[in-house]
């Protein structure tokens, strides 16, 4: 009978050992929401499945000098996390509108990122937050900026035997607004037609942009940063017209495709519109943060 061996390591050390032992024959899963479906459809046929659900070191949220999120933290626990709710609305926007409560109770942020789908909801916010991806492997630990993590659709820099352990995110500067806009056909149980994450930090005048980050989902074969648009914004006094121009720039540097979920022209158009709108939300939120 076609089946696999399901391994439930209780520690990161054990998980790494198992991964090292079984190598290419093993499939690492966190929430495992795709496992059953992909296995049934014969998209994957691993001999060993290594579940990270029971590794406590991989499931946590801490906020001290920086924000750290364990890779096996579920979207639901992020959605309910006071730290995320209070300080990282951009992540709350993403995790509270992904799938359903049921899916969010299983699916993890690490799984979302490691699948490296262009539509991964947490990728644009993590790009905008300059998140660092921390990995552990046979050679020890290493870290890369998330912008360097994706190599193509379903491809990442993870080497054989490596596991993403956590994401770290620096504390945003005080005058910062951040938001993620998920553009969909319906309000739940959907993948984005386009995902736009924007982070804007402002100088003491509250207007001049000191830092801009734009993360886009479904705008290219991998989640991407709109670096030209970011550069355009930095140093400028931000208003609607400037954001509109940034949207155009972002649309020009993106390369969306036509799929059954949306046409290329429409996605380009939405980048233009939604970069501006998400930027406007950032301005509101920055103001709110300054007052709060």
């Amino acid at each position: 009978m076609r089946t696999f061996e399901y391994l439930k390591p209780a520690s990161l050390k054990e998980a790494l050992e198992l991964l090292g032992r079984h190598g290419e024959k093993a499939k690492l899963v966190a929430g495992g929401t795709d496992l059953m479906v992909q296995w049934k459809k014969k998209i994957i046929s691993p001999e060993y499945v290594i579940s990270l659900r029971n590794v406590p070191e991989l499931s946590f949220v801490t906020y001290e000098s920086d924000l750290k999120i364990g890779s096996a933290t579920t979207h639901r626990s992020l959605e309910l996390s006071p730290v995320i709710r209070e300080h990282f609305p951009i992540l709350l926007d993403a995790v509270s509108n992904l799938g359903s409560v049921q899916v969010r109770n299983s699916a993890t942020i690490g799984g979302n990122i490691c699948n490296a789908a262009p539509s991964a909801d947490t990728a644009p916010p993590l790009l905008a937050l300059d998140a660092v991806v921390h990995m552990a492997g046979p050679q020890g630990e290493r870290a890369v900026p998330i912008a360097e993590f994706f190599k193509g659709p379903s491809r990442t820099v993870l080497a054989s035997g490596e596991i993403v352990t956590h994401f770290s995110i620096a504390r945003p500067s005080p005058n910062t607004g951040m938001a993620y806009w998920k553009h969909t056909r319906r309000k739940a149980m959907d993948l984005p037609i386009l995902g736009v994450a924007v982070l804007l930090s402002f100088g003491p005048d509250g207007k001049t942009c000191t830092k801009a980050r734009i993360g886009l989902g479904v705008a290219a074969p991998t989640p991407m940063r709109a670096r030209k648009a970011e550069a355009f914004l930095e140093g400028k006094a931000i208003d609607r017209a400037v954001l509109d121009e940034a949207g155009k720039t972002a649309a020009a540097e993106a390369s969306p495709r036509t799929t059954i979920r949306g046409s290329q022209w429409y996605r380009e158009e939405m980048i233009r519109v939604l970069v501006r709108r998400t930027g406007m939300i950032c301005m509101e939120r920055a103001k709110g943060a300054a007052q709060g």
Partner: protein
Amino acid sequence: MRRTIRFTVNGDPVEVEVQPHWPLLRVLRDELELTGAKMGCGEGECGACTVLVDGKPINSCIYPALEAEGKQVLTIEGLVSPDNELHPIQQAFLEKAGVQCGFCTPGMIMSAKALLDMNPNPTEDEVRHALAGNFCRCTGYVQIVESVRHAAELLSKNTKRTGTGE
């Protein structure tokens, strides 16, 4: 490859032999004859298979059975009291017509249970957010939302009663 796992279902300890590729739904329906949770899609999209694992709603059609080891599983069958009385949520679904064909109902009620356990007095938006992973083709959700809010009222009047297996 079969492995024996132990967990509790609706308060009762069970011991089942499972294949590693089996989802929890298969164990509940085929091995334990608890057919209340339904297979509506098998892909974690419709919510008809929703059960609570340690109080949290999950899609049991894609939840690996082996992950249930040592956990507390609550299914729709666990809501009726030992003396065969309906749980207030079940009662509310009849009183406010949150049921039509009934196929989505067990999953819908389990999602409602998880919500009301956490938030005893939800707003309409909160109910809709919590039930968004349970598709219903019959009701258009209006009377389901009314049922859940009615259930909240019944529960607040009757705080003593709870389902078994908690």
